[in-house]
């Protein structure tokens, strides 16, 4: 099922970020082995894979939390070492983590500007508040006030804050780790709109997702990881859900197809909205 990772997604776009031969081992466990990945400006790359496939490890390599054991990272035609989150931020790689990494004791504005305050010696709270409202209105965020601690917000509201924060530094690459996993229907749509807006603004977006409809809705390219290895890169237009699921599970005869056959022979592509092993999005997420 292995396919060469050689799709050039669109003519005229150039690669912003390329990974070659990235490996990461934790003791005896090879979490990532020989990963290649390319993403271009104005492209949404969906990164899919079963639990334990190494998606989150790859995100941590990109964001400077873990240093890769081997391999090279090329960012805007220059080979770089992402040694810390601060370096990643300076380069222009912004990451929204699955656990969001927000400080619950700080309020929304303080969280948005954490580590990148305007005028750090005499905080310009007015400018930060104005910019925060701008950003959050742009994302159609439903926050009654920004001066409450993050602890008071619902999961969806926190997700919005985390995404808004990633956009502050005007990044070239935005990495979203399961951005819609905890969101309600409307907020999921908002996040997907936002992902498209990022692409239209020329950002490169890497989105980890378990949700096939979300992947099909916004992604240009799907890269599949399986057990820490590349298992195919497909342009979304030309690939069926069966192929993606087969690449994820490693076989055309898998638990998803068998389940589909049992329940009346419908094609898995139309029946299963969620990739096997993925977290089913919890239903509603209304703040009130």
């Amino acid at each position: 099922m292995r396919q060469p990772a050689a799709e050039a997604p669109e003519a005229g776009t150039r690669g912003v970020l390329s990974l070659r031969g990235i490996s990461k081992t934790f003791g005896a466990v090879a979490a990532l082995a020989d990963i290649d990945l390319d993403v271009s400006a104005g492209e949404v790359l969906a990164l899919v894979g079963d639990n334990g496939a190494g998606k989150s490890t790859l995100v941590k390599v990109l964001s400077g939390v873990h240093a890769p054991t081997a391999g090279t990272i090329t960012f805007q035609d220059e080979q770089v070492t992402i040694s810390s989150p601060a370096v990643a931020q300076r380069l222009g790689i912004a990451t929204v983590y699955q656990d969001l990494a927000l400080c619950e004791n700080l309020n929304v504005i303080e969280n948005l500007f954490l580590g990148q305050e305007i005028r750090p010696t005499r905080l310009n709270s007015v400018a930060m508040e104005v910019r925060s409202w701008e950003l959050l209105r742009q994302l159609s965020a439903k926050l009654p006030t920004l001066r409450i601690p993050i602890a008071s917000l619902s999961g969806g509201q926190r997700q919005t804050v985390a995404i808004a924060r990633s956009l502050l530094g005007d990044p070239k690459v935005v990495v979203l780790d399961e951005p819609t996993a905890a969101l309600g229907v409307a907020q999921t749509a908002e996040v997907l709109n936002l992902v498209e807006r990022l692409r239209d603004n020329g950002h490169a977006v890497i989105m980890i997702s378990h949700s096939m409809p979300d992947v099909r809705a916004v992604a240009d390219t799907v890269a599949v990881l399986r057990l820490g290895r590349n298992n195919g890169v497909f342009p979304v237009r030309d690939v069926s859900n069966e192929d993606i699921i087969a690449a994820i599970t490693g076989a055309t005869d898998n638990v998803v197809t068998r389940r589909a056959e049992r329940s009346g022979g419908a094609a898995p592509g139309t029946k299963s909205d969620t990739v096997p092993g993925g977290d089913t999005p919890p239903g509603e997420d209304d703040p009130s």
Partner: protein
Amino acid sequence: MTDTDTDTGTTAAAVATDLQDERLRRRTGVKGALAGGLDRIRGGDLGLVPVILGLVVIAIVFQSLNQNFLSSANLGNLLMESVPVGMISLGLVCVLLTGQIDLSVGSVSGLSSAITAVLFVNQGMSPWLAVAAAVAGGAIIGLVYSQVFIRFGVPSFVITLAGLLAFMGVQLKVLGKDGSINLPFDSGLVRFAQLDFVPGWLSYVFVVAIAAGLFGTGWLGARERRLAKLSATSTAVLAARSVAVLIGFGAVVWYLDRGRGIGWMFVLFVVLALLLNYALTRTGWGKSVYAVGGNVEAARRAGINVNAIYTSVFVLGTSLAAAGGVLAAARLAAANQSSGGGDVNLNAIAAVVIGGTSLFGGRGSAFSALLGILVIQSISSGLTLLNLDSAYRFTVTGVVLLLAVMLDSVARKSRASHGRA
């Protein structure tokens, strides 16, 4: 405060950017501000309310037992007495805000007393040079702590417990055989800690300056917010606040001036508390300190140099502890083997916690050191007036500390159930 007491009456057309959500309850004027404050307290966001109430209760109890307690002479003395340990508490606030602790501040202050006395008296150095050397010594200790903490990951509790013992030993060594060194009474250091009081007229100037400064910065801030189309505190509320400060502080100064007035040492303490408050609330460093205390992993991923923050708070903690030791030596006009010993350590920690800084990190303010040490010192002074010895003082202070931590825990639960941090 800024959320509730807003100026919405002036322009009906444009609602401020931060008040457009229909779920927000509109509250205006002084009444609205009070209602909002009451809501926050019910939600477990107690702020400085418990410690201020505590001070009032202590004042009533001791005044009814001994009518000298609230005399200007005793209050003036109480303020001066609270400065050395208060200084130590100020540094501890920073350490506690990051969720760490420094148990060795007493020993460090004792060592710094000893260094000051030895360099100044025995070696004949200039007193200011001796003070600088003592404070620098404190800073170096903090640097060592932070390096051990960062590089080896030893819990700060253990590092500083080791420091507690080790620096007590160094202090004895520095003092040598005599074990006690007296500072000359005519030296500037001792005069500063015992005899230098702010002249009456200047105290009033300070009060007016504080009130005017409060109004000025508030008004400028409000104007900036209105220009940016955000809600802002109305001028009436700002003026009311400044007038309240003017009358309140004015009355305090007038009353203290019946006695000896306000000591310069206490002024220094208040200025340092204000500076620290500014650093914690209005700088990127301060936000980083709170962030590290709230969620260190989030802080690291936000690009904050977490190790630098830990280093800065440990160094600040031990430097201010050393400064407190210098002032303690100056106040006593001596450094001896018991300098910084006894209950100094726990009083400093208790003051910060009583003042409302959480032991769990990420919550508190610079003023908690100021108010907390006033509680501790009031209890100590009141019990001394009643001729009760340190047996009672230790016990009462211990009970008050326990009450403060219990309040902190209860408030935490209440915040959780009301959806606040």
